[in-house]
């Protein structure tokens, strides 16, 4: 582990922590514009976090230790995910610690803990939300794995850094399989980040909410950590999507200039991605929870098709 690699790693984590709420704010602002509402300020998520960190924590009577520790575990998982996913450079000392399959596991760990914490209190909303979350999660995970296997087949490795290096620093080739995988990944990230066709991040209507139902009982700094973790998750998924499907501009070596040049490019790509997310959320209606398996089944199917097309078209004897 060299010094500049460590520096790049710390810089990437710091950027993720600082920029994730900004991305959420940007998406919310775009959504408001598209729905012709007056938009909240871009920095609204920071105000929210500041407010929540200064508030006292109110715990339910039956809350066990699990309920108190879960926000920290979820937050830690998301920071780890942001550290592994190459957003600025592929020279990350943390990256060998977990490949893409372990990355899916990290997301799974966070999901399990937040669901357990929601059931821990014993309110009906909590267990309802966690059951729905598990339904969505167990359908989204295989689809995500299939997407990752498609990219792993191209680069012959499951390490995220190697995949991105292979995809970014090669001559330009059209991969039809990546088109399938890209659509499937979009479906999965909409479902995983509690976005509109599957869940609505802005609702507190009991019939529809999934993620919000689980965190209803949280307050104060615990809620702040959970909100921050949700922003980090959106940031991590966006960076993963950009790294897999639009990897151009991610610095390869340990050059500091390349790292600095990658920052505005990443900001630009995230801004475009956030706007597209807002467009998707505006033109689609939220579907019934019972349609979610079909939605995620389609994602799984597209990912498998990508894998098959990869095997048929792109491997020559």
């Amino acid at each position, binding site marked *: 582990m060299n010094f500049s690699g460590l520096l790049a790693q710390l810089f990437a984590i710091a950027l993720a922590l600082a920029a994730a709420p900004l991305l959420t704010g940007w998406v919310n602002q775009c959504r408001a514009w598209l729905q012709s509402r007056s938009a909240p300020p871009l920095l609204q998520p920071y105000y929210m976090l500041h407010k929540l960190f200064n508030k006292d924590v109110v715990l339910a009577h039956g809350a066990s230790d699990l309920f108190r520790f879960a926000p920290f575990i979820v937050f830690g998982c998301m920071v780890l995910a942001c550290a592994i996913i190459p957003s600025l450079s592929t020279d990350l000392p943390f990256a060998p610690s977990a490949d893409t399959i372990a990355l899916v596991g990290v997301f799974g760990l966070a999901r399990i803990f937040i669901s357990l914490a929601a059931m821990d209190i014993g309110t009906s909303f909590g267990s309802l939300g966690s059951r729905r979350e598990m339904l969505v999660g167990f359908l989204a995970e295989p689809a995500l794995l299939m997407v990752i296997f498609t990219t792993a087949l191209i680069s012959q490795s499951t390490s995220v850094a190697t995949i991105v290096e292979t995809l970014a620093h090669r001559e330009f080739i059209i991969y039809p399989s990546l088109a399938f995988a890209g659509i499937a990944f979009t479906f999965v990230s909409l479902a995983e980040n509690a976005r509109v066709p599957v869940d609505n991040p802005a609702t507190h209507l009991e019939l529809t909410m999934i993620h919000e139902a689980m965190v209803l009982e949280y307050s104060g700094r615990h809620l702040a950590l959970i909100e921050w973790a949700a922003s980090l998750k959106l940031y991590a998924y966006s960076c993963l999507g950009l790294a897999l499907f639009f990897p151009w501009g991610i610095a390869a070596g340990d050059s500091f200039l390349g790292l600095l040049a990658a920052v505005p490019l990443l900001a630009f790509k995230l801004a475009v991605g956030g706007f597209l997310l807002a467009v998707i959320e505006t033109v689609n209606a939220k579907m019934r929870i019972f349609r979610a398996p079909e939605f995620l089944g389609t994602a799984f199917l597209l990912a498998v*098709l990508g894998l098959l097309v990869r*095997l*048929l*078209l792109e491997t020559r004897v």
Partner: protein
Amino acid sequence: MNAAIPLTAQLINLFAAVILLLAFAMLAQRRVLPLINLFALQGLTLAASTIVAAVSTGQHHLYWSAGLTLLLKAALLPWILHRLVRRLHVKWEVESLINVPTTMLVGIGLVIIAFNVALPISQLSDTITRGTLGIALAVVMLAFLMMITRTKAIPQVVGFLAMENGLFLAATSATYGMPMVVELGIALDVLVGAIILGVFFFQIRDQFDSLDIRHMERLKDN
């Protein structure tokens, strides 16, 4: 490994993949009008892929087949179908015998079979488009599946026409297209078929007050 594939072949592969994607989208589509639009889009993609094949190989008759595909499958047939739907007032949801996710799973199985069957065959061919033979076969089988699982007449006809798309793709990918005479004959057959089936629709509706094919399983008067 991949560097050996020229750009035109990559484009053809991409278009073939899009055609396969559209075949699945048609399989999953529940409404009649979007189904017809998807079919038109498939015809358009097919024409584009044929044009790319024509440019890369310099085969002149492929331009003609691309033009014919564009005119017939992307414009004329969707227009006829749209007109039929308007005249018959059938904008309802398409009923399907088995539910959509199961159909999709069966579809995946068909794709795997088609790819496996086509792999040894396509290695005999020396065209640059040979890789798409498996996709063509898969499109044919998916269209077949659509004809089997749908109970209404119009989706069945769309399935029939989509099957012809798959056959056309297979011909282009294996041998750079059939002779012009054969192609013209098939195009005319499809057109006449669509028109005759359109007349049939009116007859079926007059007879049974519905376009549900299941009514035709009992043909005895009782």
